[in-house]
């Protein structure tokens, strides 16, 4: 018996934390937070213990039956799962420690920690799941926690609306995902072994599914991932989700939950690689989102929203990696996951730093009201600089290694398939990333303070800065684990199996393509160039931006209005179109359907009031009627009529 046999406690401990925080958290140390932190610390310890065993070759897959044959619950540990578990529990622990300081003043602190505990439980459970149905359940659970935590300050109308928007937008993806599960069930339910939803993607199973169905399943799963991981066109919810506490943004909308979509695609990678055409769409969609979100990040002035767009963009990289991975097979998962994890470190770091900034500036999020914070909060500024460098892919940071590998693979993909589109997208996105990230950093931390609040900003407390330092260390140094990581996670799927599946899907795997030196250093050039451009504009003020930032500039207007997608989705489709349909249905219900019902009753009443006129009250009339009746009766009996 080792750690791995108790791995289910990784998810169960935070659940216990949730219950304790919810019911008795209020009456404990600092009015909440102790149970959440302790249980997640426990999860982190078990995760790391398990990681060591998995590195030594241990695997586990345990199921118990649930309500129907083939429907089980259970947990599974393999390299893909354990690296996610370690990342989620560790980042969550850091953010929980930080939250002890960040949420100190909040009256509903215990509720906050209960909800984040539940979220952590959900996210860890999602990763531990050994079947798709269970994954879906946790998938929705984290969605629920996201909804609750975005709306944590429920009395703010924007927060309540943002929570609803997040839930509904991801719900669109969830329905697609659910449909994918149902379609998969349709195709495997008649197979003899009861492994309906488990991740047993053997060649026999996938061969038995018709290719069109396989592609449909893969694309429906992708739909779920697009919703959860906030890819185009369902990305609209993340920027609004910044209405929640910053710790929530860091935990849910940057480091962990939004990566669930990527994890789903990685987890079901055998299906994707066996389905013709699916990965091409994944690659283009991911690449496009990376660029698309980066352009939006250039114009927003809300410090958290800049980070939100960068999250969308970076998730696009991960998805794109999985897509272009169709030429390298199983290792694509390793490359994508490496970026996922390094992103989790530096993005959590960036968000936590922005949280310190918010704390110091009385919740001002507008970059235009900051400036000159470097001298006022040095630790945060340096930590954020590290995060920004890593996000931009500055050489030798964690982000550099992970992003570089993606861009390189995209180039190889271009060479192999002639489709350079993903490569172009993500290369341009890399340049823009560096620009908007350092726009943020320069605007916030350098120059003169542009508001009263910025002049009187102060550094965060120790409990808040300590996690920053730890995360900054990871954001800087995680890159050294690169090759070890690739070997470990890349071997998650059987290379031979993936090869055969790729054959099934019509993809050709290449090995050891030569990449020219100039291509190899292009990402670094983009990063440094982007930083230089940003420095030129926002540090040295070489360019007068006011000429471009105006409502008469069509490009600026387009970006400022987020390509009008929010308007189309919310105002046109959700409110106008479906609002109209709803009103129509309501009117139909009230006037036509209920009208017919009431009409029938009115018609019967009308007939009755017509017929009652026969009742004249005059005896002779009745007598006449009686006589006529008798005569007719006699005639009938006599057989005359």
């Amino acid at each position, binding site marked *: 018996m080792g750690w791995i046999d108790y791995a289910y406690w990784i998810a169960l401990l935070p659940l216990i934390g949730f219950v304790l925080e919810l019911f008795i958290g209020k009456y404990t140390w600092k009015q909440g937070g102790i149970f959440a932190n302790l249980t997640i610390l426990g999860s982190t310890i078990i995760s790391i213990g398990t990681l060591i065993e998995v590195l030594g070759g241990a695997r586990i897959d345990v199921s118990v039956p649930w309500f129907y044959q083939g429907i089980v619950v259970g947990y599974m540990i393999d390299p893909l799962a354990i690296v996610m578990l370690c990342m989620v529990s560790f980042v969550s622990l850091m953010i929980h420690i930080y939250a002890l300081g960040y949420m100190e003043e909040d009256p509903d602190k215990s509720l906050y920690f209960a909800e984040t505990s539940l979220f952590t439980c959900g996210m860890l459970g999602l990763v531990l799941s050994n079947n798709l149905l269970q994954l879906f359940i946790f998938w929705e659970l984290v969605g629920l926690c996201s909804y609750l935590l975005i709306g944590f300050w429920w009395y703010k109308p924007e927060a309540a609306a943002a929570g609803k928007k997040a839930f509904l937008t991801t719900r669109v993806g969830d329905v697609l995902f659910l449909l994918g599960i149902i379609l998969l069930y349709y195709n495997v339910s008649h197979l003899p072994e009861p492994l309906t939803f488990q991740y047993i993607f053997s060649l026999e199973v996938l061969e038995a599914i018709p290719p069109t169905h396989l592609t449909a399943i893969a694309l429906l799963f992708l739909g779920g991932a697009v919703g959860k991981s906030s890819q185009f066109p369902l990305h609209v919810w993340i920027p609004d989700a910044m209405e929640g506490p910053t710790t929530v943004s860091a935990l849910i909308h940057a480091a962990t939950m939004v990566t669930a979509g990527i994890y789903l695609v990685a987890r079901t990678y055998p299906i994707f690689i066996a389905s013709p055409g699916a990965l091409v769409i994944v690659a283009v969609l991911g690449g496009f989102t990376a660029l698309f979100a980066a352009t939006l990040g250039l114009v927003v002035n809300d410090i958290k929203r800049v980070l939100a767009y960068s999250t969308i963009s970076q998730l696009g990289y991960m998805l794109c990696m999985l897509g272009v991975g169709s030429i390298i097979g199983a290792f694509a998962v390793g490359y994508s996951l490496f970026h996922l994890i390094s992103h989790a470190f530096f993005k959590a770091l960036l968000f936590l730093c922005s949280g310190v900034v918010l704390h110091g500036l009385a919740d001002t999020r507008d970059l235009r009201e900051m400036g000159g914070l470097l001298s006022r909060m040095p630790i945060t500024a340096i930590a954020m600089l590290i995060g920004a460098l890593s996000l931009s892919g500055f050489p030798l940071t964690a982000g550099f290694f992970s992003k570089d590998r993606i861009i390189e693979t995209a180039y190889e993909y271009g060479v192999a398939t002639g489709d350079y589109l993903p490569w172009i997208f993500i290369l341009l996105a890399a340049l823009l990333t560096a620009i908007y990230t350092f726009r943020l950093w320069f605007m916030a931390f350098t120059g003169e303070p542009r508001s009263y609040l910025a002049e009187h900003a102060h550094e965060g407390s120790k409990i808040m800065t300590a996690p920053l330092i730890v995360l900054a260390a990871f954001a800087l140094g995680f890159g050294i684990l690169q090759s070890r990581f690739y070997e470990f996670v890349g071997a998650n799927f059987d290379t031979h199996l993936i090869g055969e599946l790729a054959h099934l899907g019509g993809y050709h795997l290449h090995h050891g393509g030569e990449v020219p030196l100039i291509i190899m250093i292009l990402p670094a050039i983009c990063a440094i160039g982007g930083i230089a451009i940003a420095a030129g504009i926002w540090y040295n003020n070489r360019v007068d931006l006011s000429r471009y930032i105006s409502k008469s500039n069509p490009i600026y207007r387009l970006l400022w209005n987020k390509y009008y997608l929010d308007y189309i989705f919310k105002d046109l489709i959700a409110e106008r179109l479906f609002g109209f349909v709803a009103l129509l249905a309501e009117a139909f219900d009230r006037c036509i359907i209920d009208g017919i019902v009431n009409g029938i009753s009115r018609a019967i009443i009308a007939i009755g009031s017509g017929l*009652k*006129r026969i*009742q*004249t*009250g*005059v*005896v*002779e009339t009745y*007598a*006449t009627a009686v*006589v006529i009746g008798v005569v007719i009766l006699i005639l009938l009996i006599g057989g005359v009529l």
Partner: protein
Amino acid sequence: MVPLEWFLILSAILFSIGAYGIMIERNGLKVLMCLEILLNSANINLAAFSRENLMGQEFALFSIAIAAAEVAVGLALLIMLFRYMDTIDLEKFDLLRW
């Protein structure tokens, strides 16, 4: 012996007269009289058929007795109506219509 048909024809004629009277007469007294005619047409029938045994005639006697009681009740009703409404025109008594 008078043939049975003759009685029946007489009875039918009386019945028709009575029915006609009930249907068109407005005067309550006349309607009551028509009712008696109707009843007696039935009595004729009963008596006419009682050739083999006397049951029919017994029945007719019963009927006459009951008719007498009925007339007493009917006349009493009419007198009461006349006292309250000052008329025995039956078309005026339409309180029970719809």
